[in-house]
């Protein structure tokens, strides 16, 4: 009950934190995936590593970041601990292997098919790359939806470096954990349902966007 008035804010905060984390991660994950798709030697070593890291426990990332961001830690001077930014950074790291790996596989596939096709039709290297990206975009968008789902559904990082502070770093998952420890199972379930609805509708929205774009 005590949560009710704050639920809309928790939802918005979750969207904001996880959305920002995914956008932030894209800044390096996409170039990294592109680099790997161009350098076969590097990809041979790195891609299996990234594939394996997709399942890394969130609480482990949370703990490492906590030790870095702690007042006594090497990055303590930044004052990031117990802020949404700490969660954003952690979740951006969390989804990096997922986005990089899936995007790499998509790019690899579209470059060898659509990229080559464009070349046969007289495209310059740059035009071929553009068309490959266009064809690969649905795959990349699907990977973004997955990353968003993973980020908004993780608990360990938000708990360790966010601190589950009411009105500031409390997100859906930490709220669920707290409700469980309070014995308020009904509201925990309700929050869980809301979280599922959010990630599913994000995925559907991205599908819809694709339809719009490709006609």
């Amino acid at each position, binding site marked *: 009950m*005590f949560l009710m008035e704050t639920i809309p804010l928790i939802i918005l905060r979750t969207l*904001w934190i996880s*959305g*920002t984390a995914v*956008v932030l991660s894209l800044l390096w994950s996409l170039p990294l995936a592109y680099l790997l798709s161009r350098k076969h030697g590097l990809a041979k070593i790195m891609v299996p590593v990234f594939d394996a890291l997709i399942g890394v426990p969130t609480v482990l990332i949370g703990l490492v970041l906590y030790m870095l961001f*702690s*007042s*006594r*830690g090497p990055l*303590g001077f930044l004052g990031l*601990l*117990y802020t*949404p*930014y700490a969660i954003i950074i952690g979740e951006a790291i969390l989804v990096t292997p997922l986005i990089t790996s899936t995007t790499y596989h998509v790019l690899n596939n579209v470059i060898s098919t659509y990229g080559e096709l464009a070349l046969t039709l007289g495209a310059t290297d*740059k*035009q071929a790359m*553009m*068309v490959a*990206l*266009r064809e690969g*975009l649905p795959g990349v968008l699907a990977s973004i939806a997955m990353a968003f789902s993973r980020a908004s559904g993780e608990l360990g990082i938000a*708990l360790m470096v966010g*601190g*589950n*502070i*009411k*009105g*500031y770093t409390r997100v859906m998952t930490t709220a669920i954990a*707290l409700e*469980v*420890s*309070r*014995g308020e*199972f009904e509201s925990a379930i309700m929050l869980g349902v809301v979280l599922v609805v959010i990630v599913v509708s994000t995925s559907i929205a991205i599908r819809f*966007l694709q339809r719009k*774009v*490709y006609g």
Partner: protein
Amino acid sequence: MAVPGVYMNKIIVAVLTVIIAVVLASVLYVGYYSREIHVRVATTTSLYATGLLDYLAEAFEEKRSGVVFDFIPVGSGEALRRAANGDACMVFVHAPSLEKKYIEQGVLDEGHIFAYNYFVIVGPSSDPANVSRASSVIDAFKRIYRVGEEGKALFISRGDNSGTHVRELSIWARAGLNPRGRSWYLETGSGMGETLLVANEKKAYTLSDIGTYLKYKKDGRIPYLTILYTNDSELINIYSVYIVKSCSGSERKMAEEFMKFVIGEVGQKLISEYKVKEYGVRLFNPVNGRLELLRSLWVKLSEG
């Protein structure tokens, strides 16, 4: 560019819009948030989960605007560890032996007992170990051990180094028994609520704080469990508040004011009345005139 660019451009515009919106939201968020003084308070989850701290903080903030208490609910051990790392200004805990360790390390400055209640031994109403007839808490645990060895009872332990778990272990130690590894002794490694649910399912004994037990009982989640034993000295659960040594500036000033409020007349009255209407009994007892007694009990507990 000569590529049929219309589609691509649409997407790029959409993506840029999202990024800009996100950045703007971040900037606004920071601006909105940083106007107030924030006090970082590490606390045990079980205490935070009762809602008492939010309730006290709200009452305090009503009179003293411009301050926000950031409660970070974690385990007792983790709360003190975070304080030691300088990542909290204030701690609310109930684990005297752990507290003593960190006081000796010089992590904690000033501390006060601000409330107390009792642990209870709960179990199935059939009570195969006759715990309800025990003469002391040590006797109660001995009875459980004996019947457990006979295969007629189970004991569920938190196993998570929480205040409750630390207390349970110290009782076993004082009884001269070591149940660890016995087939009837199960460690859940999870919170009090989950542990009560396990005990209920398995019709087993466990040690619980009174607050969580009452909450779960009232919600009808643990129909098979009942309170079998408690007493007001050995099973006392003492809650203390500390200021962390490394904390300074306006954050420390606010933390000190809040501590004064909690142990002061108004705070103590709020504590004694908290949720009494809901449960019909007190969840927390105020310190009132019993400070000396509580201190001596605290010292005894802190020595394990």
